[in-house]
């Protein structure tokens, strides 16, 4: 049964993104800018084994490591000091879980020392539970989400004081 024009356009966008991702992998491309009519798709890829970052749509993308972003310095000297450290962002859309089960201890808490390969949380998308590794060495200084919360691609999850 055909969907509405809006639904079909969305499905077509998803198909186009998947096709472009395959092309990036096949030809080892690190960037694609695709423009057709009113549709613009920008894809960036960090390396041959990492997943592309899709900027037009939040398709779940379980990557080898979480995305790390340095905290911004204060804009003005008189402004309140921005939290220091590095932010671990969600690498995918889904539901954030702090532990492997509600009865289990959380993977990390404030003050936990983490290594690059430490699992910091699990994110579930479509009943696939993905371990999220820290991606850096350091100490957790702030947890920015609650267990069970829905998270978006790029949403800050933890603040970390790098080692």
């Amino acid at each position: 049964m055909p969907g509405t024009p809006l639904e079909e356009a969305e499905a077509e966008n998803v198909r186009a993104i998947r096709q472009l991702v395959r092309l990036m992998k096949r030809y080892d491309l690190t960037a694609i800018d695709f423009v057709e009519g009113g549709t613009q798709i920008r894809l960036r890829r960090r390396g041959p084994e990492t997943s592309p970052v899709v900027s037009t749509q939040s398709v779940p993308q379980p990557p080898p490591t979480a995305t790390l972003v340095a905290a911004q310095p204060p804009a003005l000297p008189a402004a309140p000091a921005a939290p220091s450290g590095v932010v671990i962002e969600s690498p995918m859309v889904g539901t954030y879980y702090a532990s492997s089960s509600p009865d289990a201890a959380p993977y990390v808490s404030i003050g936990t020392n983490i290594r690059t390969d430490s699992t910091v949380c699990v994110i579930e998308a479509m009943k696939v539970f993905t371990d999220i590794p820290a991606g850096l060495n350091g100490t957790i200084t702030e947890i920015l989400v609650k267990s069970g919360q829905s998270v978006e691609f790029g949403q800050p999850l933890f603040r970390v004081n790098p080692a």
Partner: protein
Amino acid sequence: MSDTYSKQWKVERFDTLDSTNDEARRRVLAAAPSGRTVIWADRQTKGRGRGSNVWWSDEGSLTFTLAIDPRHERIEPSQEPLMALVSASSCVRVVERLLGRAISIRWPNDIEIDGRKLAGILVERVETPTGPWLLIGIGINVSSNLDVAGTAIRTRATSLAESGLGRIRPDTRRRWRLYVLLKLLSEVAYQVDGLSNDSDPLCDFFEPRDSLAGQAVRIQQGEKVIEGRGCGINPDGSLRLMTDGGLTAIYGGQVLRD
């Protein structure tokens, strides 16, 4: 990534395990298996489901976990979230052939017959020192005695025997479990290869079996509940939900049952 990876299933059977997913996790973290691996237990003492849910099973249940390396299987990272759906569709194909009747899927991976759950699937992506592995835990009620499982399970679950296969004699239970396992291994291998070739779109298979299509659906995401009407799935596996705010793609959360 190891150069050698066997696509022949290597099956390891245990009388009892805490959880086949937990054993598979321990295996892949200790050392990368040499290829497709099956951890099969006659009995689980701590069978897991989603969150705090436990997976009830008895000697009539088939419980196992498949461990596969997504890179050797040529599964793109963007396709990994589809693995629960792929596994569910594999189970459905096998069960439909066994029973000779259509059965339904409740997004993303509950397999139901007449509204009762026949099989459960738990997929985990584990980071290991040598790269990611996918663990696909499957529990299917072959000839389970649901009368002793408690009211909550009794009213919501079914088995192959109850759903048309007929009574299975105790002395043939093991043979039946092995038969279903072998059928499933063959089908999962075929579906995984199909996924890497991007053939046979899942949404086409899903559509006529979608138990949420046209139904009022509530999705719990943390403290938030999203309400809408089921409109099938997108090619990326997300649920299409028509809400008051328009068509929404749902990637996570729990479908609430009334």
